[in-house]
């Protein structure tokens, strides 16, 4: 899967499943403060990532993911490894 495709897929589920406005999806957006993803949402992100990209996130991995760009990078890295 191309990096661009991954970014589109991530944006799609953030818009569809998490009901985040498309205009908020800028690379520097903070997952917590701007996109308002809370601790329970991370549980659902694990499920959605497994469904869309076929790999399982370890809960502690989220600790280093602060911005949307961090999130893209994380998914790209693991999706490619997978």
């Amino acid at each position, binding site marked *: 899967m191309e990096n661009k495709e991954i970014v589109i897929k991530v944006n799609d589920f953030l818009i569809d*499943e*998490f*009901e985040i406005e498309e205009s908020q999806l800028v690379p520097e957006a903070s997952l917590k403060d701007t996109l308002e993803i*809370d601790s*329970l*949402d991370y*549980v*659902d992100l*694990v*499920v959605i990532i*497994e469904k869309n990209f076929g790999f*399982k996130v370890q*809960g502690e991995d989220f600790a280093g993911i602060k911005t949307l760009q961090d999130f893209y990078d994380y998914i790209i890295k693991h999706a490619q490894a997978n």
Partner: protein
Amino acid sequence: MNRVVITGMGIYSTIGKNIEEVNKSLYVGASGIGFEQLRKDMGFRSGLTGIIEHPELKGKLKRRQRVGMAEQGEYAYIATVEALAQANIDEDFLEKNDVGILYGNDSSAKSIVNSYDVLKEKKDTALLGSGAIFQSMNSTITMNLSTIFKLKGINLTVSAACASGSHSIGLGYHLIKSGLQNAIICGGGQEINYQSMGSFDGLGAFSIREDQPTKASRPFDRDRDGLVPSGGAATVILESYESAKKRGAHIIAEVIGYGFSSNGDHISVPNVEGPAKSLEAALKDAKVKAAQIDYINAHATATPVGDLNEAQAISKVFGKKTPYVSSTKSMTGHEMWMGGASEIIYSVLMMQNSYVAPNINFENPDEYSAKLNIATETIKNHNIDLFLSNSFGFGGTNSSLIVKKTQ
């Protein structure tokens, strides 16, 4: 002691998605029962069930508010929005007052089954999602609604089988009567899905009149062959008379009596003494005589033994001359955890509009139902100043409520 009044009602049921639709259905004796092939495919003895459309809450509630909600919670949300609007209770009132919630619910099976299916396939609890736990607990309705409406009073689920909704109103009545609370959202919710009903179907207690779904629920009729499972949600706003007057709310009716008892007997087979005791306790609490009751909304679910024993209990308390009796379950099916609350709403609608809804499908009495004055068709222009509503459940839990018209 405070007087306890009803200031709002809301409902989402198989015979209507709001108060107005339900009132029309009750008046004409419409049935909410149908046949679901999926149940037969899953090995059910009966494919009969109440039919309900799932509400779409996307756009009405945020994602976080929806993901922890089981289907009966969705019904309860719709019913509660309607009830709060009728009571003229807004966000500001909920913010400034300790409004409570006491809601009847006694299962949330579908979400548990769904989680188990995922677990069996994935063997990883991290893939169950964040909503599963909040959907699967018995208190799913109260935990979700108390969060959505930002409630600050009592927050409690009442689980008492098919008397859950009735007990929630009875307990709310006592908390307000004693001055511990001023306003409480009471009610009952019931999921409608095969996952929650397989084990009940396995008891052989459901009607198998599958070729005539709308004729299948036949409370008190000689040829009844079992109940039809159903559901939805019903919300009643209880408030102290003083609180309602102070804020100029329209008072719909007054709850004046709550009787309860436990059979101390068989887990599923009801008896006569327990229900009779509950009826008598409600009359005593309301300080009214049996002869003053204008209408009885019977529990009668259309099981052979249950109806037989309730008919005897009513006769025991009311004697040879009973007021009009009907079981609205003939139209709705058995709404179980919801039934005790919805049947208060059905009866209040009859009281407000001066009619008795028919006990449809009552064609031939049995030895005991012959002694009751059963409304076989809509009784028009019938004034109801006082009604009594019965609810009984597995384990022998009984609840009877008496409601009075307010002028």
